Structure formats: C-alpha cells, structure tokens
C-alpha cells in the first residue's frame, strides 16, 4: 500500500518525503501502548467494581447488573466530557479511553456540546452521532453478518 502510494509521486516529491520523514519525532509507541493497556484495564476494573456493587448491595444478578453498570460508566464519561477533562485524559491514555464504552459516550457528548450553538434539531440532533454513527452502522452490520453465520452453522449442525 505504502509503495503503491509512493509510485504516484514524482522523484522530487519522493526525495522530499524521505528528507521530511527524518525530522518527524518518533511516536512513542511502547509507552502509548502501555498507557492504553493500563488505563483501558483500569476502566474495566472500575466497571467490574461497579457491577459487584450492584450485585451485592442492590437486587441484581450477574446478567441484569451489566445494564446499570454501563449506564454509570456513560454518566461518568459524559460528566468528564462536559467538565472539559476527558479530552485531556484521552491525549494521555489514547485507545485506553477510546475503546471502552466511555469513549463512545464521549464521542456523542462532545459532538452534542459542540453543535449546541446551531440549535437543538439541526445542531445537537443532527450532529450528535457524527462520530458515533459509523460505530453504530458498522456494529449493527457486523452483528447481522455474525448472526447469519451463526444461524447457518447451527442449521448445519
């Protein structure tokens, strides 16, 4: 892919890009991976703790406790987004805050906040799923495909 892209460039462009590449600071992949791993993990630990609370202190079982747990995480994420803290944590944590449900909530809340100035219908309503929309579209589609495969396999079995 990278080679194919390069072939379209003129020799001068290629020469320049080689020069420019040298001056780009390295992305600290290892430290970013580790941070994402630990922050993502910590969010899951927190969620587990919340779930245990729902099971032990309220009348939930392991299956029914997951819904209120997700709701609490979303609430925390949306509050942090509103207070303007979430994007700062995310710059440090990377995928650690983007992959869990908190990242999904942040993408919706941030878009809603940003477009509030354009009104509630066209602004908030129209733009809320600007970033999250693709997650929903491809998530639903992937679920459909998996569902079809599962049905086919179970029919065969």
């Amino acid at each position, binding site marked *: 892919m990278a080679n194919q892209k390069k072939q*379209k*460039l*003129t020799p*001068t*462009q290629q020469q*320049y*890009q080689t*020069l*420019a590449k040298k*001056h*780009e*600071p*390295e*992305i*600290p992949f290892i430290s*970013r991976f580790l941070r994402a791993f630990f922050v993502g993990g910590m969010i899951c630990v927190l969620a587990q703790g919340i779930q245990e609370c729902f099971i032990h202190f309220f009348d939930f079982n392991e299956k029914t406790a997951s819904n209120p747990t997700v709701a609490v995480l979303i609430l925390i994420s949306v509050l942090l*987004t*509103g207070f*303007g803290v*979430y*994007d700062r*944590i*995310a*710059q440090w*944590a*990377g*995928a650690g*805050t*983007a992959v869990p449900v908190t*990242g999904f909530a*942040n*993408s919706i*809340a*941030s*878009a809603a*906040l*940003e*477009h509030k*100035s354009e009104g509630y219908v066209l602004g908030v309503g129209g733009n809320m799923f*600007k*970033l999250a929309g693709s997650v929903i579209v491809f998530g639903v589609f992937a679920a459909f495909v998996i569902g079809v495969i599962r049905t086919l396999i179970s029919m065969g079995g």
Partner: protein
Amino acid sequence: MKQGHQTWLFPSKPVILSSAAIGGPLEAQGPLADDFDTLHGDMLLGQSSWEKAEKTLLEECCDKAIEKAGLTKEQIEYFLCGDLMNQIVSSSFTARTLQTPFLGLFGACSTSMEGLALASLIVDSQSADYVLTATSSHNSSAEKQYRYPTEYGAQKPPTAQWTATASGAAVVGREGTGLRVTSATIGRVVDMGLTDPFNMGAAMAPAAFHTIESHFRDLQISPAAYDLVVTGDLGRVGHSILSEMFQQHQIEIPPERYRDCGMMIYGENPNVWSGGSGCGCCASVTYGHLLHRMKRGEWKRILVVATGALLSPLTFQQNESIPCIAHAVSIEAESEEGVR
C-alpha cells in the same frame, strides 16, 4: 513595481502606522504574553459560540489597531482580511461591523502576509492613504471545523500543531513614522504529496523554501541582507526540515537568524506538540513581538514568511494531498535608507 518573477518592490515604502495583537488563555501563558495588547482568559470571550468568539477577537483587534494609529474607522479606506472559517465568516462579519470597503482573503495561515503585501501594494500605488489588514484564528472553532469536537478525546501525534487563539491587525499608511514595508514575494502553491493533516509543518516547509529562494533571486540579494528570517507556523518539525533544506541548497542563513512563529508563541510547552499554527499565530507574533523588537532597534530588517496549508477536511477525506503556499514580506526600520 514588479521585480524578477514574483516580487513586488514598494518604492514609496508604505508605513506600518500601528499594529495590534490579541490572544487567548494559552497565549497568555506563553513567553510572548507581554507583546499582546489584550489577553483573554475566557476561550468564549463572553460569547455564546466559538465562531462568535473568533469574530469578537478579530473586531477587537481591528479596533485596537485603528485606535493605536490615532485614526477613526471612517478614515480607513480599505479593509483586507481573512481567516480559517468556512466562507471566511469571521472576516466578513467584522467587515460588516467596520463598514469599510472590504476585500476578503483566504490563504489559510499565510493570510497575514498576503494581507500585508496587498495592503502595501494598494498604498504604494497611491490607491489609498490608510489600509487596514487583519486576520485571526480560534483554537476551538478551528478544531470544530477541521478536526473533531473540542471535547472529543482523540490522541494527537507529536507532529501535530496547536491552532492559536489569536488575532493580529496592522494599519498601513502612505506617510508617517513607523516600520516600513519594502518588498513582498508572492508564493506559488507547492505540493510535495504529503497527506497527513497532523503534520502540516512538513507539508508547508517546501512552500516556504520556494518563496524564500524566489525572494533572494528576484531581488538579487543574499540572506545576509536580513537580520532575521521568520517563517509563519512550521513548528519544530517544519523548522528543522527547512533548516536542512537551506543547507542543502547553500542558502546561508545562520541558525540564530532563522526563527519560526509557531515555535516562539508557546515556547517549550509540550502540550502544543510541534508548535502553534493558525492565521492568528504568525499575525500576532509578527504584529506584536517582532515589530516591538524592531522598534526597540534589535533588528533593522526582517523577512516574514507566512505559510499556509490550503486543505479542507473534505479534500483530506477524499485522499487528496495538501497544497501549501507561502508569502514573504520584508519589513525595515525607518532609519535605514536606500537599502532594499
């Protein structure tokens, strides 16, 4: 008067009668804070949206420049202005407030020098006595338009730059005292095929190089003619690329005589990654810090090269590369006579 391929000489040497720079909260924490006329602690400037905040920033800056020149709005004959917003709304809305004949410009972050070059041309051709040129950018409105919602948690690479919340304006006049504009080189669009909008410094450096090289060629002068060459907002990445290009092409500008506004505005702040960017970055650093230091006699002649990346979020999504441009303007302290 045209000289060479793409350079204008201004024999009458239009005067920068006054200049103003206004910044936001992060600019106030930077090392150049003292050079701003006004600094705002509130990103919204008391307005209800980022777009309105940017317009207010620009209006304030224009008012300040006119006031410092000892003029009134009615005396300004033409207003040249541009910004990063779609349909350059901040500029047009400011022009609505000013009620001055207006020409809108778009040159992305190169707008500041595009405006100064054109203002000088208008004054030099005796088409006006007083021309106001201004530009602005706002971090949040630029994030919203070009990238993601401001509160969205996306991790940026170390080559990314921080759009400055700043505005700069200057009044150029035919007569008076002050620093003078002696020549300007209009750049052509250079595209080296780079596609990463989080690495604009690398995309813009060749455009800056081309304009600087053309400037020296057209005027047949050597880099030694300038006490300082300043690029707009290449940031740390672009600055080091351009320095190497100077070396490769035997353009001898000593490292201490080549600076970059994007690196100067925030100093060593690691939260802005490669440095500052946006129309307001070069404009506020030039119209604030650089002109102040020239007035104190630290430099006699400087060349300001504002660089702009002419992309839109749409062209990026359609996998187009980033076309870039740079315009150079030479500014001289008054006492020097007969030097180009």
